[in-house]
């Protein structure tokens, strides 16, 4: 028999610590390299309290990405001048020198002509500072990709305004009643899924945490939950308002929290702004004991009124809470039931269960600090918030939590920082009138108003929004209408696939791409967008490069090191080297270093700051980020792999103690009026198309426009991801395509048996979804696990490349069904509508070569 081990982890070799990059988050890993230098096993690092030695299916595939024969092995140059989805680029390998010469020459030309002519699509989440590179490129602020489809155009600004963080999650360590509304947290997607799934499973099984999932589709979470509540798509806000109605009507809210920790008691005048005292401009509250209005910080305040109408200084004013209460008159469970299809009794029961589980009034002692204890929380994400009225919707979800007083509270709904350059509590800051300072811009500083616009996606007009990249579809195909005094001709794509991820008319996207004078792409495999490039620069694989990051972990924190476990397999470079080289050649290296300093937070420890004239590689940046976090040298990180600990409770729980949270977001009105004024002054021609109603200080039950599409589009189409495809491309990895295309929910377009029968559709038939904006074709997968008015399209079915050996095009790109227009864009947050109205028709019964047939339909559509 064999004396040499046959199992990979048992072979002779070494284990190297690293950090996973198979999604954008940062699970800690151990990588096994054989004596011969071959990576043959990637496991979770058991020393991490985040993923605790465990990995999701994607994380288990890291070595196949490294050894992927489809990797770009050297810089490539296009020889076919014709560009198109079906054009063979005619790649020829070139040297780095030649590649940098071309890229440097072309980008320099652009920079000199007008830096705004560059369209960047930079989406490497583990090297977030790269997103800021365009700022070094003459303060370019264009954005040719979209956050709204991935995660949340409305989500991140609202988290920034409520928690002062990028993301948010329920507190899995203490929560006892977890609602997941249009979200896969803890089961299938979003934040640190291997870690979240572990904490979630333990909470459910060991602590008996109850999970309620509200979604049109029976997701993994829905399948595991105590209760799955199917809901009509794009009505999650109305469901939440129904809950709020019951909570308020039945007085199931946390009075003390609302009075002490929020601005719900601030008096609001008839114009929607807080009533301010004339002499010092201070916000006012009503003291019901003394029966008079007082400044919010008046030490004589004996109690705060939450309700009532008061006459103050000659105007009628109401506490913010009373305004919300009045709004809720229109949101009875009966009315919300009609909109959502969730039974009235269910809305009422869930609200009561939620409030009971929240244990309002209870406290807990953690690390010697006594705090409120609210172990019930409403969690949500893309599915629920990704609608035209994204801002209202996100705000409404926060209010469900605020009513029971659980924001940033043990057991409740807690803000999670992104890549944490704020070692201490620096992410929160006091704002005006005792309130927390709203931080809607978590990814980059605000883009100032300008007309003519400086950004192709109109970010100039979203003072509270996150890059509505989908608007490029209308602006770049009709630039006159938007008054541009430049037109972009250069594109830089870095770990991004804009053609795939952006909604809207595909022919228009192709038209925009065709007009580019020069496209440079940086990635490790090609995709639908990068095949349009003129020059492709190969980036190192995760297992060949350095990095230091922590991307929005939930209940843990601490920098995670990525280090090369083997020498580069091919002629690739790190992103740092690539951007440094380009920067140097076009003369912006010094600015780039300054910007990196700012984005990485190095000024907090000035000795870490990058100096002008020097090029810092991936190891240098990683080392500095480690030192910034905990003063540990990179060698320490190489040994440990990470500095991950549970979140420090003083930073995690109520870091804003003493400040008031924004129950009523007056800030939104301020920004609205400022924008209005700017637009008027500059006579912006499209200002009348701006839907100003999207800016509200409190949410209401208005319907999103998707519900008002013509009646013939009688079903809703949604798209979804599961844990195997959570963030980032990986279907070209055989193990992933293996498990994805065998999973029933990813085998075809999900349709309820009743809806199928009504349309003569049988399991496996070829069906077509037609929306007012586009159509896609795929196989029907009949399932009981979906709302009868809804068809579900797995994100796995939306690829259309066929040069990846194991990708199975199927269904067509869901984003083609979606509009890219102002009507369906939240004027406040920039969030786009992610649900489509469609009619569903049978094309034919299943052909023998179903895959080929579906593929042939892609361009036919």
């Amino acid at each position, binding site marked *: 028999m064999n004396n040499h081990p046959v199992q990979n982890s048992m072979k002779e070799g070494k284990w190297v610590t690293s950090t996973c990059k198979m999604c954008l988050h940062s699970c800690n890993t151990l990588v096994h390299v054989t004596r011969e230098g071959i990576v043959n096993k990637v496991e979770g690092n058991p020393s991490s309290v985040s993923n605790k030695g*465990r990995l999701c299916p994607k994380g288990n595939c890291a070595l196949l990405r490294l050894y992927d024969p489809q990797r770009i092995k050297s810089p490539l140059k296009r020889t076919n001048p014709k560009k198109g989805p079906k054009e063979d680029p005619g790649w020829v390998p070139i040297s780095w020198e030649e590649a940098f010469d071309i890229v440097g020459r072309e980008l320099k030309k652009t920079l000199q002509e007008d830096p705004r002519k560059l369209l960047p699509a930079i989406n490497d989440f583990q090297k977030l500072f790269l997103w800021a590179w365009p700022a070094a490129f003459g303060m370019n602020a264009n954005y040719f990709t979209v956050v709204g489809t991935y995660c949340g155009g409305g989500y991140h600004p609202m988290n920034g305004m409520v928690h002062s963080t990028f993301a948010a999650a329920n507190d899995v360590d203490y929560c006892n009643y977890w609602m997941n509304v249009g979200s896969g947290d803890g089961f299938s997607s979003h934040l640190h899924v291997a870690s979240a799934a572990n904490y979630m499973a333990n909470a459910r099984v060991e602590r008996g945490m109850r999970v309620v999932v509200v979604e049109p589709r029976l997701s993994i979470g829905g399948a595991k939950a105590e209760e799955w509540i199917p809901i009509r798509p794009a009505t999650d806000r109305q469901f939440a308002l129904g809950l709020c109605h019951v909570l308020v009507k039945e007085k199931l809210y946390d009075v003390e929290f609302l009075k002490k920790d929020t601005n719900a008691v601030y008096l609001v005048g008839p114009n929607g702004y807080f009533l301010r005292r004339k002499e010092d401009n201070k916000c006012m509250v009503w003291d019901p004991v003394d029966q008079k209005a007082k400044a919010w910080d008046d030490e004589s305040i004996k109690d705060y009124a939450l309700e009532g109408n008061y006459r103050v200084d000659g105007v009628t004013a109401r506490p913010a809470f009373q305004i919300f209460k009045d709004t809720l008159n229109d949101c009875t469970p009966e009315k919300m039931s009609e909109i959502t299809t969730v039974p009235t009794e269910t809305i009422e029961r869930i609200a009561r269960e939620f409030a009971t589980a929240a244990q309002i009034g209870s406290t807990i002692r953690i690390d010697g600090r006594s705090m409120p204890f609210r172990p019930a929380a409403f969690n949500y994400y893309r599915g629920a918030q990704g609608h035209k009225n994204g801002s209202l919707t996100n705000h409404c979800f926060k209010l469900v939590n605020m009513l029971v007083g659980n924001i940033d509270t043990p057991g409740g709904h807690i803000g999670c920082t992104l890549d944490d350059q704020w070692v201490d509590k620096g992410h929160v800051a006091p704002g005006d009138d005792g309130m927390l300072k709203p931080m809607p811009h978590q990814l980059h500083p605000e883009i100032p108003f300008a007309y003519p616009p400086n950004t192709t996606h109109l970010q100039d007009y979203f003072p509270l929004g996150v890059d509505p990249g989908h608007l490029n579809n209308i602006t770049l195909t009709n630039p006159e209408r938007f008054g541009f005094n430049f037109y972009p001709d250069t594109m830089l794509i870095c770990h991004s696939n804009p053609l795939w991820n952006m909604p809207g008319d595909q022919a228009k996207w192709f038209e925009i791409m065709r007009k580019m004078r020069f496209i440079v792409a940086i990635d490790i495999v090609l995709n639908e967008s990068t095949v349009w490039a003129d020059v492709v620069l190969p980036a190192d694989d995760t297992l060949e490069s350095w990095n230091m990051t922590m991307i929005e972990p939930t209940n843990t924190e601490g920098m995670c090191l990525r280090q090369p476990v083997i020498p580069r397999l091919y002629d690739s470079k790190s992103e740092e080297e690539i951007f440094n080289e380009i920067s140097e050649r076009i003369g912006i290296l010094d600015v780039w270093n300054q910007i990196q300093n700012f984005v990485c937070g190095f000024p907090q420890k000035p000795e870490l700051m990058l100096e002008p004239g020097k090029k810092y590689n991936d190891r240098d940046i990683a080392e500095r980020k480690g030192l910034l976090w905990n003063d540990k040298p990179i060698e320490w990180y190489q040994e440990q792999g990470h500095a991950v600990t549970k979140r420090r409770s003083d930073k995690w729980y109520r870091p804003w103690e003493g400040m008031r949270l924004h129950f009523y977001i007056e800030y939104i009105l301020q920004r609205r009026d400022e924008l209005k004024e700017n637009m008027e002054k500059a006579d912006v021609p499209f200002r009348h198309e701006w839907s100003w109603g999207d800016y509200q200080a409190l949410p209401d039950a208005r319907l999103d426009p998707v519900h008002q599409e013509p009646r013939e589009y009688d079903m809703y189409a949604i798209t979804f991801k599961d844990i195997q495809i959570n963030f980032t491309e990986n279907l070209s990895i055989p193990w992933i395509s293996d498990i994805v295309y065998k999973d029933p929910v990813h085998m075809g377009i999900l349709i309820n048996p009743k809806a199928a029968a009504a349309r003569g559709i049988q399991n496996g038939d070829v069906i077509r979804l037609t929306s007012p904006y586009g159509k896609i074709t795929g196989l029907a997968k009949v399932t009981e696990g979906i709302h009868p008015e809804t068809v579900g399209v797995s994100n796995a079915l939306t690829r259309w490349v066929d040069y990846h050996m194991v990708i199975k095009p199927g269904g067509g790109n869901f984003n083609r069904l979606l509009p890219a227009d102002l009507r369906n864009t939240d004027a406040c947050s920039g969030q786009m509508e992610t649900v489509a109205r469609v009619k569903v028709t049978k094309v034919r019964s299943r052909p023998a070569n179903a895959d080929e047939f579906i593929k042939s339909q892609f361009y036919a559509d």
Partner: protein
Amino acid sequence: MPRWGMVFDLKRCIGCNACTIACKQENTTPDRVLWTKTVSEEIGTYPNVTRAYIPLICNHCEDAPCERVCPTKATYTREDGIVMVDENKCIGCGACATACPYKNRYKLHQEQFDRGLYRSGQLTPFEKQGYGRFVAGTTVKCTFCHERVDAGLEPACVITCPTEARIFGDLDNPSSKARRIIQARKGYQPLAQHNTKPKVFYVE
């Protein structure tokens, strides 16, 4: 001598198939060979519907039909209860594969090794370092990661499972976690009516 067994906690399993891939990583099994996998079952009709995720693996039966029908004694049971196939004895008749009520065995074909995971005819260095353990034409199956177990480690699918839905342990040891869960939560065996005495249990 321990008697190794596994418990699947169906309340925990989320059907992510990290186990499936961890196994492929650990064992370099070729394309289309899945020693473990998790399937789903839709139960009920809308809106009263749910889905169960069910991990499947070689059950390492006490009374293994695969071992019984094997004409060459290539299939054998180790002292610790792990059912193994000796790749040097197996003739690839497939009798074991047809006899396994759980369809948990795979026959290897040369073509799988030639085409590789990317079905391109090019083998990755990972595949090259790992395929040596296999003999085309023979039958293979889960070994409970016997070498890891011999070294005191848990199988690859167990350590990677994000939800800890797989519990590996000594069924003879009254204080092993596996044994305690089976008893506390009334574990049951798959297709128990066949009386193959699986060493794999499920708890709801």
